Structure formats: C-alpha cells, structure tokens
C-alpha cells in the first residue's frame, strides 16, 4: 500500500486517526485522490470554481416499525426536506428503500422521495428484493436496461456506476455481484481515461467491515481491480446505518446513515438488529449526505436529522 500523505503534510497515521474518529459533521475533501478532513462550515480552498452537488439518502426502510420507534415514513419526510434544501443536482438512494419489498412500501417511498424535486438514482438493498429478486423494485426504480439492474451515467465529467450486490447473497450472508455484472463493469470502465473521477454506489459495503454480520461483498476484489486504475474513486454504500470511512490508495469508501433506524457498531453486541435508543437520541443517529465535486475532488458532508 502506498504511503498516504495529505495535501497539508498530514501523514497516514494522522489521517487514519481522522478516519477512525471521523463521523457526523466532518467533511472529507479529496485532493488528488487523498482525502483530508475539514470541520463542517469550513470552506474548501478559496477561489475554487464550484462544481456540482449531489446527495445521498440511504436505508429508508419504509414500513419499519419496532418498539417505541416512530414511523420510518416521518423520518424520511424529514430527510427529504433537508435534502431538498441543499438543492443538489440529483440524489442517489443506496438501497433498503422499503422494509419488506411490498408494492405499497415502494409506492410510499417514491411519493416521499419526490419531495427532493430532483432525479433519484436507486440501487436496491436486500430488503427490496425479498422473494422476487427485486422484480417490483426494478419495475419502479430500475434504470439498468438489459442488465440485472446495474447501470452507469455521467454527470459533469464524473462517471457514476450503480451496482447491485443484494439479489443473490452468499451463504455466509455477504453481498455478491456475480460474474455477469463484473464483466459489464470491466467493459463499462475499459475505455475511460484514468483521470475520470469515478463514483460507484451500491448497497452492501465493498470492504469487509464485519463479515460475521454479512457486512461485506464476497466478490468485491475483482470490482476493485477494475476501479483501482482511476485517480479518484469514491465508493458509497448503505446497509450498516452508520458513517464509517476507509481509504485504500485512490479508493475511498464511505458508508452512510440510514433515515430510519441506527445499527450497532461493527461486532458490538449480540447481533446487527436495530439499535434501541431513547426517542430524543434517535435523530442524532439518522442522517443524509451531501457531496460536492470541484474538478476531480469531492467533499462529503454528513449531517444528522438532529443538526
């Protein structure tokens, strides 16, 4: 692994410290593929031309209700209102739109998501593909044409790739892309210049966060092999309902908040079930993400529904 040194001479050790403790309210700025953190509100270098902004919403779990938890609908409405206020160019939703893959839950989610007043690019979570391999999900939210639901698009010179790793899970519960999708990804990326910034988004993490809970993707390695030659690769996912970052050379990984309920830290407690928190704490653990691109740099701002 190459030594990671930030633009301000921040060494790898210090960068990793930020990574470990970074979370809500920290902005990650990319400089030549290497992130540095800024406090929220602190501006990126002055004089830079504004690029474009997109948003990420994840794990809305419409239909989820447990214990004293309020409606996942209400918290999504809150999140969507906050996202609309950011006026992003478009929004990505990194899966688990619904809780139980029902047509009604998809319809409710789609109605609420219209509140962002922008195009939304979806990929499914494993809660969206129960029993029908995502048929209902793709009918409503699908963008992949002639594929198993995966697709790509370009925006302002950045290449976006929406990947599906939940339709067939492995027997150990990890995500799986499958050879057909990996072949498609290789072909999709082959003729692009290495200087094209890439954003790949999918539901389950593409790095092994806690495989015992299925928090990883079995065949992420060949996907990363196709992505690694690009100078700036940003991988966005949901699934674990908390913000964690990881850097591997030019590839950075970012998990996202849920808008519905929090989950425990990796491996903490008996299982990955919804974290029970006092009602007044809940919104401090749910949130949305804003991403600002300036040239080939992207900065991420995670804000909670309590901010």
């Amino acid at each position, binding site marked *: 692994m190459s030594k990671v040194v930030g633009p301000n001479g921040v060494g790898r050790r210090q960068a990793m410290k930020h990574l470990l403790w970074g979370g809500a309210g920290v902005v990650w700025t990319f400089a030549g593929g290497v992130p540095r953190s800024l406090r929220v509100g602190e501006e990126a270098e002055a004089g830079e031309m504004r690029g474009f902004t997109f948003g990420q919403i994840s794990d809305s779990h419409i239909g989820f209700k447990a214990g004293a938890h309020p409606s996942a609908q209400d918290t999504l409405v809150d999140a969507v209102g906050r996202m609309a206020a950011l006026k992003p160019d478009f929004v990505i939703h990194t899966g688990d739109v619904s809780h139980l893959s029902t047509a009604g839950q998809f319809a409710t989610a789609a109605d609420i998501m219209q509140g962002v007043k922008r195009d939304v690019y979806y990929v499914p979570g494993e*809660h969206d593909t129960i029993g029908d391999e995502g048929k209902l999900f793709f009918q409503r939210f699908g963008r992949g044409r002639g594929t198993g639901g995966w697709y790509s698009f370009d925006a302002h010179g950045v290449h976006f790739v929406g990947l599906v790793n939940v339709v067939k899970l492995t*027997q150990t519960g990890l995500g799986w892309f499958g050879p057909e999708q990996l072949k498609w990804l290789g072909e999709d990326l082959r003729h692009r210049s290495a200087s094209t910034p890439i954003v790949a988004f999918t539901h389950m993490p593409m790095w092994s966060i806690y495989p015992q809970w299925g928090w990883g993707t079995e065949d992420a390695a060949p996907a990363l092999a196709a992505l690694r030659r690009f100078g700036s690769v940003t991988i966005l996912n949901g699934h674990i309902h908390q913000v964690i970052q990881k850097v591997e050379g030019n590839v950075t990984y970012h998990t996202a908040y849920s808008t519905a309920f929090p989950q425990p830290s990796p491996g903490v407690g008996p299982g*990955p079930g919804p974290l029970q928190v006092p009602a007044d704490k809940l919104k401090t653990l749910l949130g949305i993400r804003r991403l600002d691109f300036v040239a080939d740099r992207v900065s991420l701002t995670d804000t909670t529904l309590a901010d």
Partner: protein
Amino acid sequence: MKRFFRRRPKVSLLAALLVAALCTAALLHNGQAAAAATSAAATKSAVTITNYSFHPATLTVKKGTTVTWVNKDDDVHTIKSLDGPEAFNSPALDSGNQFGFTFHHAGTYHYICSVHPYMHGVIVVR
C-alpha cells in the same frame, strides 16, 4: 401445504389455541388421532427467531406436523428451504409475524433466512 399468518392479534391466537384444544379433545375417541395428538404434543413444532438465529437450530418432528416459525426479532426474516423432499419459501416476516409449513414427507430439510443467509436451521421429519 402452506399456512401463513400475518399480524394475527393475540386474542385470535388464543382463540385458535382454544379451538385446537377443543378439536383435540373431540378427537380423543379416535385412537389414531389421539396417538397423533400425543406425539404432536410431545414434539416441539415451533421455531423461534431471536437475535438472527433459529431456536432450536435443529428440530425433529413427526410426519404431518405443522412447524410454525415466529419472528421475535425487530428485523425482517424469511424461511427458505435449501433442500429436502418439499420446498418452502415464506414471504417477508415482519417483527412479530409467523409462518407455518406442514411436513408431509420424511427427510432432512435445511433452510435459511434469505435476507440473512448466515442464519441456518434444520427440520428433520420422521
């Protein structure tokens, strides 16, 4: 044959149990039925889902037994067979929901939760 229960309130569950008890009592005149009722009573026919696992992980029942899975987790689970003489695949079971399947053929049935495939269970039918 599949039997599927969704969000049945406790009252009707109690009513169902009462009806089942009355039916069992009514059938006691029939020796064969009484024997079946006795063995059913002696064999656990429920699997509880708690903390992302099936309890008991292996359940042995007599042919003709209906096994009911009860989801006591806050998360959603499913019951999906991997092998065995008959296939079963439940819809999504929300917290508190249950799914029943009647086993008519002897054999060993491995099953998983399709949402969390690391959850494994076995039903042995004799």
